[in-house]
């Protein structure tokens, strides 16, 4: 009988259901995109990256805010050299991004603020070089990734010279000695997505140019590579004890009350994931609002429906319908709308998630458990929104209801 009532008001029921469909579809789309985004990021950590420890010194209030949050330049070249001698450590080097105005090649200048990274030789692994070789420390050489090399009208190849214009307008040249195989970020310091990059040796580009005002050049970050994945914890421990007891960084870190952040890619990713989760909760919350609006739509239409069918309620009560029967009838009606809405909404959300993933070019991952949750929510919305109108219907006095025109 509920179903027949829904069918007899096709347009009204469709519009009501649409409210639920949109709400559920929005939730499913955003949850799918969130899950896909996370899967895309997590999938990008190479096994090689897992044995690296990323370190920087920052005020305590900046901790857990992601890679390089609040990082201060405290590490010196002797610190890095000392660290590479520690047990369990294969290599250690500094890391900093160089604030630039542009990257130029062949008379063409591409404005770029965040593309240039100065670091150690081992930052780019040998087998990651597709063409040429790694740069040498102390030389005016550069390694580019394909996104950078192909950004110019004429593609940059090994042997070409590029010009990096540092903030302040000071321009330096570098000979391209290698092109990497892909444009993925090579460490969490660069972020987690692909992008155009120029990799330069810290010496001379950082030590002589950017940090020349300082007595001793100091790097804001270090990378410590463990011998193997099993050695990561040991490398981390020895790095910490070295930094706390022997390093040059110690003095400045103590003076400025900085703490050392030493984290692996996996740990940093965990933090990033926490941020992503928050973001997702926020977006899903907004999508959830539309679901709430949808449920108010159901409640509204059920109230109209109950009023409109007052006389029918009177008839049913006169022929022996209990309050419970009337309640069931209207709640069933609301639940049917809720279920249909959530099923169609889930289908629409699956399509929406797919389209969104295509658009922002991330691998599609469906959070299947959410589909179940969506349908359960649809039923709950139906019950929740239908309960009050149904209760109003159930307690209608049959005498008044039969007189109702």
């Amino acid at each position, binding site marked *: *009988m509920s179903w*027949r*009532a829904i069918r*007899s008001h096709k347009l009204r029921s469709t519009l009501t259901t649409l409210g639920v469909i949109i709400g559920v579809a929005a939730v499913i789309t955003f949850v799918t995109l969130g899950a896909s985004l996370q899967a895309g990021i997590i999938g990008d950590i190479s096994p090689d990256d897992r044995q690296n420890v990323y370190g920087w010194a920052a005020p305590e209030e900046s901790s857990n805010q992601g890679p390089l949050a609040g990082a201060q330049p405290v590490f010196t070249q002797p610190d890095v050299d000392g660290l590479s001698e520690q047990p369990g450590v294969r290599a250690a080097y500094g890391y900093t991004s160089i604030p630039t105005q542009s990257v130029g090649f062949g008379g063409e200048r591409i404005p770029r603020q965040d593309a240039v990274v100065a670091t150690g030789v081992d930052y780019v692994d040998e087998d990651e070089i597709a063409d040429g070789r790694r740069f040498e420390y102390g030389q005016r050489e550069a390694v580019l990734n394909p996104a950078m090399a192909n950004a110019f009208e004429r593609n940059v190849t090994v042997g070409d010279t590029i010009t990096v214009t540092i903030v302040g307008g000071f321009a330096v040249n570098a000979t391209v000695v290698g092109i990497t195989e892909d444009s993925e970020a090579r460490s969490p310091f660069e972020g987690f997505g692909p992008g155009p990059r120029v990799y330069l040796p810290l010496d001379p580009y950082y030590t002589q140019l950017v940090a020349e005002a300082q007595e001793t050049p100091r790097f804001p970050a270090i990378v410590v590579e463990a011998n193997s994945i099993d050695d990561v914890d040991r490398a981390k421990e020895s790095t910490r004890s070295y930094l706390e007891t022997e390093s040059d960084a110690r003095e400045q870190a103590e003076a400025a009350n900085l703490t050392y952040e030493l984290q692996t890619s996996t740990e940093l990713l965990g933090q990033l994931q926490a941020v992503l989760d928050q973001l997702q909760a926020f977006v899903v919350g907004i999508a959830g609002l539309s679901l709430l609006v949808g449920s108010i739509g159901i409640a509204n239409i059920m109230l109209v429906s109950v009023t409109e069918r007052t*006389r*029918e309620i*009177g*008839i*049913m*009560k*006169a*022929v*022996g*319908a*209990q*309050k419970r*029967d009337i309640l069931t009838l209207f709640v069933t009606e609301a639940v049917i709308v809720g279920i249909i809405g959530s099923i169609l909404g889930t289908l629409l959300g699956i399509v929406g998630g797919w389209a969104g993933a295509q658009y922002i070019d991330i691998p599609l991952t469906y959070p299947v458990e959410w589909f179940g949750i969506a349908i359960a929510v649809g039923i709950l919305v139906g019950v929740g929104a239908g309960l009050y109108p149904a209760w109003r219907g159930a307690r209608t006095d*049959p*005498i008044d209801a*039969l007189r109702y025109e």
Partner: protein
Amino acid sequence: MNSTGGSAAVSLEAVTKTYMVGEPVHALDGVDLEIPRGSYVAVMGPSGSGKSTLMNVIGCLDTPTEGMVYLDGQEVTAMSDRERTRIRGEEVGFVFQTFNLMPRLTAVENVALPLVFRGISVDERRERAAELLERVGLGDRLDHVPNMLSGGQRQRVAIARALVSDPALILADEPTGNLDTETGENIMTLFEELHAEGNTVVMVTHERPIAEHAERVVHLLDGEIERIEELEAVGTEVES
């Protein structure tokens, strides 16, 4: 019919119904009435005489302020709302002036409606409803919805619905009020047939010719029984 002994179908003892409309208004004021099983009673009276209230009280739609109501020997006044609803479904068959059919249900579904709330199976419901529609002459209209039926046919569906639970009494409120004279006469003939078959019929009306089909006419005035009139059994003419 379905109960033992000589107890009446309906029995009212000193029933008073008071509405508070600023000051107390006695819609019914100490009414004593016995409607024997198998009788055919009409209730007449001008507007405001308490006809509707009496009908609601007898039909378990309303409870009296004071006094006792027995339906088929059971004391209704002491019952909970739930029990009263149940007994209403089982022991009272309503026929209304405006038919009061469910607009979206077919004739057979309308007739079967009271059985739905008693948890009787679909097949049994349909069988019994079809049987009764056959009885009121609508065997060929089983799957028509009310707005495909004429007024007289709708009232026949309503009567079939009133009979479906095999009730202790049929309570008709101005059953011919919305029908033309000829159709009204046909409906009255049907009631007489039902009475002849042993059903108890209570009919509220303000039309004298309609009331004359009954065996007895209860005249109400200002919430009290003014007089009870015994009539010749007109029904016998029709019966043959």
